[in-house]
Structures are given as C-alpha cells and as structure tokens.
C-alpha cells in the first residue's frame, strides 16, 4: 500500500518534471526539471529494492552530470541563441514520434491480456531483508559474470577522456 502511494507520487513528479523540462523556455529551468526527474527516478529504483542503483543514480546523474550541465549553461550566454530557435517547426516529427510511442505502449497493454494466463507484467519483489545487500550483488555480477564487458566499457571511457583532453589542447 505504502509502495503504491510512493510510486504514484514519485512517478507523478517524474512525469511532471519531464513535461516541465520540455515546456520551459529557459535552459536553467529545463536543466533543473531534469534534476527533479533524475531524483524521482532514484526513488523509483529504491521502491524496486535497488538501493545501490538509487544512490548511484542520485550521486552520478543529479549530483555530478547535471551540476556540469548547469555549470555550462551558467557559463554560456544563451539569451541570444534562444530567440533564434523555433521549436514549433518540428511539430510533425514530434507528432510522429508521439504516435509511435503511444502505439508501442498500447500494443503492450493489448498483448498482455492475450497471453495465456498472464495479465500485465507486475514485478513481485522479494522482501528486502531476505536479499543480500544490493552492492554485493552488483559487485558479483560486475566483477565475475560481466568482467570483460565492464573492462571494455572502462577502456572506452578512458579513450573518450583522452580524446577530450587532446581536442581541448588543440584549441589553445
């Protein structure tokens, strides 16, 4: 019961933040709406019993990446650029994407009744006390089952980092 209430509240905040992100004209307002979305996503992860992912979501996305976003927006004067951008021109593309998305969601709802003996997929989470701590589970799958993909991803990030440094040096 409490789970449902919390899910509805934070799911609502998440969607409202996402809508506000698109509706605001000023980039700082949009960026802050995105922070709200990231934060409420963190709470949704928490409701699914993934406390480690929730904490990392808040630290990495809301705490680090979005601070950089805000930082860049504060540095760059966007007032001139903003007046030249016309958002309305892309409304046919937006309509098509929205229709495709609605179709996909509708298909999922429609097909869920058709499967034999199945309704909508509902996650049944085990009681939090019966599970090992999240961080340990993540560590085991990251450093045992998926060690190679993990290392490849880290090398890829390193390459991106070195590339950024090289490009920044060329400029000056």
């Amino acid at each position, binding site marked *: 019961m409490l789970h449902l209430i919390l899910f509805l509240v934070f799911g609502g905040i998440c969607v409202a933040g996402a809508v506000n992100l698109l509706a605001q004209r000023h980039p700082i307002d949009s960026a*802050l709406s995105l922070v709200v979305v990231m934060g409420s996503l963190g709470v949704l992860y928490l409701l699914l019993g993934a406390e480690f992912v929730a*904490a*990392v979501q808040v630290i990495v996305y809301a*705490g*680090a990446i979005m601070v950089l976003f805000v930082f860049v927006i*504060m540095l760059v004067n966007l007032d001139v650029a903003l007046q030249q951008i016309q958002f309305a021109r892309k409304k046919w593309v937006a309509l098509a994407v929205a229709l495709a998305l609605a179709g996909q969601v509708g298909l999922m709802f429609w097909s869920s009744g058709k499967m034999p003996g199945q309704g909508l997929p509902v996650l049944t989470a085990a009681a939090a006390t019966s599970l090992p701590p999240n961080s340990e589970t993540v560590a085991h799958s990251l450093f045992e089952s998926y060690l190679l993909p993990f290392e490849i991803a880290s090398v890829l990030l390193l390459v991106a980092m070195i590339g950024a440094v090289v490009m920044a040096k060329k400029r000056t």
Partner: protein
Amino acid sequence: LTIGWFILVSVIKIALALFILLTAVAYSVWLERKVVGHIQNRWGPTRVGPFGLLQPAADGVKFLFKEDLTPPHVHKVLFTAAPMIAVIFALTSIAVIPVGDSIRVGSFEIPLQIADVNIGLLVVLGITSLGVYGVALAGWSSNNKYSLLGGLRASAQMISYEIALGLSLVGVLIMAGSFSLREIVDAQAGTFWGFIPRWNIFQGQFIAFFIYLTAAYAETNRIPFDLPEAETELVAGYHTEYSAMKFAMFFMAEYANMITVACLASILFLGGWHGWVFGPPLLRSLLPVLWFVLRVIGFLFVYIWVRGTLPRFRYDQLMAFGWKFLLPLAIANLLITALIVALKG
C-alpha cells in the same frame, strides 16, 4: 516494533536530532568567533551573556528582524529557492549518521540513529553532492557578476574535490566491507596489543584521512579553500545579494556541512563512538555518545584553527592541488590498500 511505535520513535528522534544540530550550528559559530578571536589576540564575543554565550540567540533575532531584500532583475523563484536548497540538503544528511550504539527504553532497544540504511555512506555523499545546487543557483539567480563568479567557482571546486573525497573513502570501505556507517564503526572495535585502538587511522588509512580532511575543507568552502566567497576579489561571492534570514540559511548550511564532515571523519577514521565505557547500563549507552561528540568538537576546533592559521589559495593553485596532487595520492592509497587487503584475505 509495530509501525505506530516506529513512527512515534522516528518523529521524536528527528525532532531531537534537528534541535541538537541547529543548536550545534549556532554554537559552532560562537566557538569559531571565540577561538579565532583568541588566535588573533582578541576576546571574541563577550557582551551578550557570560562569555558571550547568548550571542547566537542575539544573532538569530537580528537575522529575523533585518530587511529581507530581493534585488530587481533576479530570477525570483530560484533566488528564493537557493538558500532553502542549501540548508535542506545540509540538514538532511544527519539522518543516516549514527551517534552511538543503542539505548534501552523499557522493552525497546532504540538505535541512536534516525535511519540505519545499509548504504549510509552513499546516502551522505549523494545528499552533499546535491548541496552544490544551492550555491550554484544562488550565484546564477542573483544577476550579479560577483555572485555568478562565486557560484561558478563553488561548483567547479566541489566537482573537482568530490572525486578525491570519494576515492579517499574507498580504502575504508574495502577494510570494513560495507557501506553501512554502523558496520564501519563496529569494524573498528578493539585494540592492537591492548592499548592502540583499531581505528582506521591506525590501520594504515592516515593518508586517506589527510586526503578526506583536505577535500572536505574544499567541499565546505572553508579557508584555505574559500575561493567562492573570497572577499578581496568577489565582495562576498555567491551570497553577495542575500540579506536577513536568506543569508543566515547559507551560513547555517555551511556550519551544518562542517558538522556532517566532522561526524563522518570520526565515524570513518577515528572509531566512531568507541571509547572507555563503565558504570550502570544507562551510562554505558550514553558514554559512547559523549566520546563521539568530543571527537566532533575536536574536528570543529581543527577547522577553526586552520581558518585562523592559513591564507587562501590562489584559484589555479586550488585546481592544481586537487587534480595533480590529491587525486593521484588518493588513487595510490586506494591501490595499496586494495593490494594489502587482497594479500591478507
């Protein structure tokens, strides 16, 4: 514990923790003025009450009755929200910090902590990393070049030092094997050869301790890292345009963050509340709290001592120190700790 009792106990604990934290914030301002006064061969506050002890109350009344100015051409919503964001995140992180073992009331065993979560350390880091928004948005929304520069400096500085801060804590986490602050403290119980306590700082984590303390000073914008509010260059930095209670909120946030840092330093490196315990059961459960509070006050004193002693860094020195010295040192410390723990286990 039934759900009703749980809620009642939690509300009482929250009210107590908030009251104690806010009082501690007020009196660390008093302590700072007193200690810095003596360092500079002055008396500090003496007029209001004995030893100036009622000075915080007088300051509070003054802040409440001052005119609350909102300058023209500011982003009104963010200008009002920024000090709230700063103070909310500064006060929230106390929720997961344990101050002692547990206390027995009737048949209940009540832990001396608002919420015992198994990712306590990550929660503190997450909340403090959100605190940047208060400072950055205050600087941006004020529509003032000094404020903007202060806000930019603050966010750049906090992002830079957060990395070294986080890496310095990983060594402790490897040794304790848990994110839970309570388990980290429990892992430091006992002594070596009967007289050296098994605190992390004596288990080879003194370099991490140094990195943590330095990075935390930078995170809380304290001297020698108080570039965001460098008076000589930026008037008052990000809070130039703020007055009355809004200004006081930034002040409260800064001191609450200092207290959080002091609590974390005691928990992670100095054995939390472990100390000499004797006497009847009630005294046995309250003495650890006293040892913990003494450690925290000690850290606050060091904060003030450093402020009274060191000059401010230049901005390029600040960045070079963070990225070229602290970060490699933290990585080296982490690698060595991991190697030793791996060889032992």
